[in-house]
């Protein structure tokens, strides 16, 4: 059996995942990166996107929002503002959120409200990430 790495995903509302896994792939600052067992110490910021980890030949998808991740001593820790497993994502809600954010972005051009635009953009990104994760997660 291949060596494994300990994955921990921690959010302000509690730990989400704590498990030994084979490989982790996450949306880092400079694009997606993969981490295998015994990776060198590593620190990166995390963008909104999907975190994928493989355990026992099965892919698991998580939607993560901004934060950062640390790799050391064969342990990978994600500190993110929120994380949701693929199975738990409410697709209808994400779709509605996406529509809402898109509408706001379209309207913001006329109102030129900067703060709301950034917020709507972040909401849109989160909604898209959620949908992607929900879609990919094998049932």
């Amino acid at each position, binding site marked *: 059996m291949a060596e494994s790495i300990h994955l921990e995903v*921690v959010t*302000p509302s509690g*730990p989400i995942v704590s498990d030994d896994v084979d490989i982790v792939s996450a949306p880092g600052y400079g694009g997606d990166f993969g981490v295998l067992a015994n990776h060198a*110490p590593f*620190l990166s910021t995390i963008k909104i996107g999907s975190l994928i980890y493989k355990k026992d030949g099965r892919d698991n998808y998580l939607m993560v929002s901004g934060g950062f991740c640390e790799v050391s001593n064969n342990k990978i820790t994600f*500190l993110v503002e929120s994380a949701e497993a693929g199975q738990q994502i409410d697709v209808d809600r994400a779709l509605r959120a996406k529509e809402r954010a898109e509408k706001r972005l379209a309207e913001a051009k006329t109102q030129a409200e900067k703060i709301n635009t950034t917020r709507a953009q972040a909401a849109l990104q989160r909604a898209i990430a959620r949908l992607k994760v929900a879609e990919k997660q094998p049932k």
Partner: protein
Amino acid sequence: MPSLKDVKTKIAGVKKTAQITKAMNMVSSARLRGAQLKMEAFRPYAGKFDEALRTISGNMKSGEFALMQSREVKTVEILIVTSDRGLCGSFNSNIIKMAERLMKKYEAAGKKVTLVCVGKKANRYFRKTGKVREKHVDIMGNFQMFNARAIAQDVAANFIAGGSDEVQLVFGSFKSIARQLPKTTHFLPVKSVAAEEGAAVETKQAGDYIYEPSPEEIMEVLLPLYTNVMVYNAMLEVGASEHAARMTAMDNATKACKDIISNLTMVYNKARQSAITGELMDIVGGAEALKG
């Protein structure tokens, strides 16, 4: 001697008060459980966060970042976190007292003090001083990270813009269900690990890390997040402390009500007895008179 009817109404009134305080006690204990769970859930995040910040900040010069810049202190901002609601004993007034002492101390040293109040109670007390720069009320009920973020961002932006040179955080820390203490912690500028605990602390293999992007850029992301974590933590602790304090206060109130009821019942019985005695005397006296 109070009249029978007066005492009876009073007993009924106190009984109703006892019912309310009892209910508030139970509501608080239920809410406390929720708040405590949230606090416990947040702890690993805060702990890990601290760890990571230490790893990075260990080998970095603190002067480089806006949030770590220490300058000559002319204006001190005090961020006060209290609850929105009262009826929780001396919990809020203890925090307010501590903040006020701190304010006086800084003012005595010739520094300007501005306040940021989180929670209605702090705002209500300090608003007449005219020193409140910003207030955030009615947000203590639901603990949301974005509330904490808005506060942290506002305070940090003011600090960077030079509106304050130092920020202190005063809140009610949760020691146990029976003990909540007001606490002051240094908030801004963020002190690096070395400055905090002396250079003796070994910064764990900080140099060996691969950083993506550069350590400096990570710090730029991490530091504002760190302020969020501090504010959120304070809000969670105040939330839990508030409910714990209210539980104790309401328990005491219920007990006090029971004491009053038993005293009043005694008064009522005595008054009734003397009324009966009086009536009997009348009857006996009347009978005697008829016998004549």
